[in-house]
């Protein structure tokens, strides 16, 4: 491909130029170091829209319909888009060495870890917590490691913890489905669904913490954590 050749020939300077443009156009969603945020992590080296430079060029240029990813062809030149592609290539894999065994990790996920009690992969598991079918494309391994060991480190939007105290004094805790100025809908750990209006209860609060237990640092040894990470990183969904 022409783009690949250009990017390769131009080398580091080219990627460096792309870095400045990246910080302006892309960083608000993809993170200042391309580590992801509101938009996907771009340091993984694999991308939803295809893994060729031409795929990246197309996505930056035209955007992804139905998502927040806008097209930039009117805002920057083709040359600048090529620099962006070079920059994204230059950051790929920089912090993503995976040491574990994905097959062993899959066994831990569904058995010892009990992850499927709250998370879904494909059609298997529960939908209480975030769906992990494509998490290998969406999150860096560093982020995933944090999520396993310190579940409260960053809460995926829409999965905060909701607590309601009823007029009878009963306290109900669950995972947010909606939380607004007047009502809350949430699901407790047994999978039971609740919906309350604010005026019908004593209190209604939402906290940025996870209902996932912070036990995996003790439950799993380092090898098992790495295996689990290898499995999660391998989850790329279907194209």
């Amino acid at each position, binding site marked *: 491909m022409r783009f690949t050749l250009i990017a390769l020939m131009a080398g580091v300077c080219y990627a460096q130029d792309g870095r*400045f443009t990246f910080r*302006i156009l892309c960083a608000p969603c993809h993170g200042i170091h391309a580590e992801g945020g509101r938009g996907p992590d771009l340091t993984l080296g694999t991308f939803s829209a295809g893994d060729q430079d031409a795929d990246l060029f197309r996505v930056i240029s035209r955007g992804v319909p139905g998502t927040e990813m806008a097209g930039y062809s009117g*805002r920057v030149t083709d040359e600048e888009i090529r620099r962006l592609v070079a920059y994204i290539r230059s950051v790929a894999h920089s912090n993503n060495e995976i040491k574990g065994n994905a097959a062993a990790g899959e066994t831990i996920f569904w058995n010892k870890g009990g992850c499927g009690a709250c998370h879904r992969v494909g059609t298997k598991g529960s939908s209480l917590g975030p769906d992990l079918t494509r998490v290998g494309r969406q999150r860096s391994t560093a982020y995933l490691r944090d999520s396993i060991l310190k579940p409260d480190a960053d809460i995926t939007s829409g999965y905060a913890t909701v607590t309601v105290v009823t007029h009878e004094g009963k306290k109900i805790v669950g995972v947010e489905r*909606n939380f*607004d*100025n007047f009502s809350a809908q949430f699901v407790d750990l047994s999978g039971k669904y609740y919906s309350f209006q604010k005026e019908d209860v004593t209190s209604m609060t939402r906290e940025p913490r996870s209902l996932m237990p912070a036990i995996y640092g003790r439950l799993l040894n380092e090898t098992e954590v790495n295996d689990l990470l290898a499995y999660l990183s391998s989850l790329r969904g279907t194209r």
Partner: protein
Amino acid sequence: MKLLVMLTGAIALAQDWTSYGKNPLGWRYSELDQINTKTVARLAPQWMYQTNVPGKNETTPLVFDGMMYVTGPSNNAWALDAMSGRPIWSYKKAPPASVSLCCGQVNRGFAVRGSTLFKVDLQGTLVALDAKSGTVLWESTLEDYKKGYSATSAPLVVKNLVVTGMAGAEYGTRGFIDAYDADTGKRVWRVFTVAEEGWPGDTWKRGGGSTWITGTYDPSLNLIYWGTGNPGPDMNGDDRRGDNLYTCSLLAIDADTGKIKWHFQFTPHDLHDWDAIGDPVLADLVIDGRAVKAVIQANRNGFFYALDRTNGKVLLSKAYTKITWADGIDGEGRPIVIAGQDPTEEGQRTCPGMGGGHNWQATAFSPMTGLYYFTSTERCMLFYKTKQEFVEGQWYQASTIGRAEPGNGRIDAIDPKTGKLAWYFETVSSPTGGMLATAGGLVFAGDAEGYLIALDARTGKALWRFQTGGTIIAPPISYALNGRQYIAVAAGQTMITFSLPK
């Protein structure tokens, strides 16, 4: 029906809503009181009009002669029968694919003079339409959209002039406010919001200072008040040393000549995107025992200001949100800046964030309660500067922001005589909608989750709400028809009205 003699000299019925800020002073206060603290519990939907146009709806609809005039995203507009919601005519002009917009294909409403409507289109044009038919009467170009210029705000009619701002400070443009002859569309005056003096080299040519929120007008002083946006490039001041006048300022402009009578710069040499675009609300107040003609604004930089609108001197300033960049405002109105808050390559966390304490969302002032109502956010943000070459017509920021931190919000009621908070209504998300105050002792606002909410204007207690099913960004309005008072708001892609059951 009560009559209100509008200060423009024209006579308008209280039942109508005929300009962006309801009156030229920008109060967004309806004299209608059928819907009040006692009756609001019975408020119910009357009709909905689904525009089927995706995008953000930021419009302030106009209502007169039984019709509602609504602008929508992507250069769409509609005339709806105000009683039934049925469409009478529509307007559409597809925007050019390459029009440069920072923040979506939005529009904030019409202006009207007699039976002629005025609106801007995204590609930086001002259009006059016949209210009866929607026929285009004239069209004038503000500036070339290929150079980064665009337009989104509702125009302001002042005597025989149609006054309009522009957008595009993110694209290396030079801001201005224009006045056009309402009959011919010929430009009468232009005032640039970026002075040629005081900027290094030719940086003033791309100095920003957008004018993207409608101003207000004081007929007794014949002055137009209009806020200006951030300097360009936005959060990187390395190439634009100095105060960067008249960005992040309020301008008082002689309506006949377009000359700047005075200016007040809220944020000299802004590095955080704190446009001075809160509605400049004109209110006569008694501050420290002295009667003053004031202009008030909750500025994006986190301070509430009351200025003397005859001369631009600061009367009062008070923080209304968490602020880490300044220790206060000095007697001359200049912020006492705290060192070390400028954006850096590695990121500097500053409060408030990029959207400021209060952003552009419409505010309201009630002469009944004497309170000023606006939405605000408690949020900090990481600000980064980087490098970028200027290319005409292209995104020119040389800076960026970090991932948004979670932040909640409030609807605030401030006593503008003291700057003190009278009450607040806490919201779970950053506020999205604008305000309406009414003689029924109510304030209305929409929220991010789609509720239209009525609060007691004196206490902030929520008295009524309705889940509309779409995020509310637009401010509500009120009008009356055949003896019934209506509340109307654009929610999601739908125009909705409410009234009391017959």
